[in-house]
């Protein structure tokens, strides 16, 4: 990430009202080149409206949007149109034209910008090749599967060589396997073409696999913002935590039901670890240094932006309080978070 250069896109205090209620309420953020910014929030949080403000599909009631330091509001219609051509967009429902063949769908943005027929054809075929659908050029959209349609949609969005790609829940209509292949394609294109991607989604899974930075949106406001690694390791906000919940280990319900807060055979400890600590054989070290063994009830380590982030529920014998205290102190010292959630 090159934070030293000027942001590619900058939104300042954006407000958007729907019948006097603010759907977007004072949102500011900037996006740098080759970044993948994920905007996450529940349905109705204003994600879609926000992303549509960027390319003018939604007008803003106050605030400013700068694209490569140009204030979009101060441009005339024609210049704004030229900027739109530099911002590609992909959609949840693909929005392909059913009346056109795949190749003509991909070539449409070029036709709109006045490219010659031969150029359009060549470029469209190249793009279909990138998304590995060159053999479907003469088909109509209806003959394609959802995943293939989204690939066409991506090829079409890239036709005018945009610097930004907006993704509006692009994988929400696809099954997990297809979603994964689309995300891989986006990652590949991003590094080949030096593309900047802004994607909105309600699935943390998507953010985890592709985004570098993340914004949590709720009721039209930014709740939390930071690198995906940081937010995943230490979410500050309750909404963020609950959005993360789906992909985080939780205490098995059989154990959670038996949990009490006073005493029991085992202490259940929620244990978060990241960075170098997560690369250590920490349970072995715990045993070596305190003589206590910990049993993993639930959890694991995952890699986000090449950094290990671990979350576990551990069970440690609680019959000897002193030893438990010692083990707990060791865990607290070697982790981001250690907390005795109860006893069973």
């Amino acid at each position: 990430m090159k934070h030293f250069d000027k942001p590619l896109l900058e939104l300042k205090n954006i407000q958007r009202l729907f019948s006097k209620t603010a759907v977007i309420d004072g949102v500011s953020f900037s996006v740098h080149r080759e970044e993948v910014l994920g905007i996450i929030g529940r349905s109705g949080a204003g994600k879609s409206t926000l992303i549509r403000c960027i390319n003018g599909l939604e007008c803003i009631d106050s605030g400013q949007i700068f694209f490569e330091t140009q204030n979009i509001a101060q441009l005339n219609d024609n210049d704004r149109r030229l900027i739109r051509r530099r911002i590609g967009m992909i959609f949840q429902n693909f929005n392909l034209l059913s009346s056109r063949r795949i190749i003509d769908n991909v070539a449409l943005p070029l036709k709109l910008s006045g490219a010659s027929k031969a150029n359009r054809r060549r470029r469209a075929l190249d793009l279909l090749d990138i998304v590995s659908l060159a053999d479907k050029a003469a088909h109509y959209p209806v003959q394609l599967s959802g995943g293939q349609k989204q690939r066409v949609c991506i090829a079409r969005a890239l036709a005018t060589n945009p610097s930004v790609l907006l993704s509006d829940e692009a994988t929400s209509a696809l099954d997990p396997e297809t979603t994964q292949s689309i995300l891989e394609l986006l990652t590949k294109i991003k590094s080949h073409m030096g593309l900047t991607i802004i994607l909105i989604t309600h699935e943390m899974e998507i953010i985890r696999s592709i985004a570098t930075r993340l914004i949590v949106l709720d009721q039209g406001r930014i709740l939390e913002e930071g690198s995906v690694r940081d937010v995943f390791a230490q979410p500050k906000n309750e909404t963020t935590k609950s959005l993360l919940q789906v992909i985080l280990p939780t205490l098995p319900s059989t154990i959670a039901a038996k949990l009490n807060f006073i005493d029991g055979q085992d202490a259940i400890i929620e244990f978060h670890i990241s960075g170098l600590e997560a690369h250590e054989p920490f349970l072995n070290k715990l045993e070596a240094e305190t003589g206590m063994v910990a049993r993993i009830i639930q959890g694991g380590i995952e890699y986000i932006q090449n950094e290990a982030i671990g979350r576990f529920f551990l069970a440690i014998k609680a019959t000897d309080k002193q030893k438990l205290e010692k083990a707990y102190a060791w865990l607290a010292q070697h982790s981001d978070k250690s907390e005795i959630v109860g006893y069973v």
Partner: protein
Amino acid sequence: MSNLEILFSLVPRAVLDTCWMSAASSFFALFFGLPIGLLLYTTSSGNLFENAWINRPVSAIVDSIRAIPFIILAASIMPITRIVVGKAVGNEAMIFILSISAIPFYARMAELSFRNVEKDLIDTVYSMGATRFQTILEVALPEALPSLITGFTVAIIAIVAASATAGFIGAGGLGQLAISYGYQRYNPTVMTSIIFILIVLNVLIQWLGDRITRKFNHSR
């Protein structure tokens, strides 16, 4: 004249008259109705050229003409027919009247076809930096085409039916034949034959319309 003589001497001419009146009126319905439909669609609220000052009056005129029953319309615009065509009876006068009645009908059908083009597609090309005219030319028209053809088929069939009614007020064709032999003299053979020809004509038009629609419809 025997029934067969009547059929052989009068029917071919009547079929030609009906086809000529229907074809010419259908042409005018398309030629004027389609642009008016497009105008109604684009100027309606939330659309490309949103403009209530155009939409409301055009809409009102279209609805007013559609409210008048065909026979009454023919009688009420007779002075205008006389000015435009030169006479108030005959096939050419009927073409004028049929067109006046069919244009608003097809305009509304066309508007409906355009409305059924997904708003998302319009948004999509907008986000590609399309001008409003490009949006109409590259998206609204091609995407609405199958539906426009289906609507036009319905309009032609309505025009054929109306042209038969026009037999009452001085038009030639199958309608006039059916009225003078079937309604006034009650000749069942001639009447049945004409009904049969009308059915065949309608089936043919519908079949052709469906075929062309299918050729342009790539959405299923």
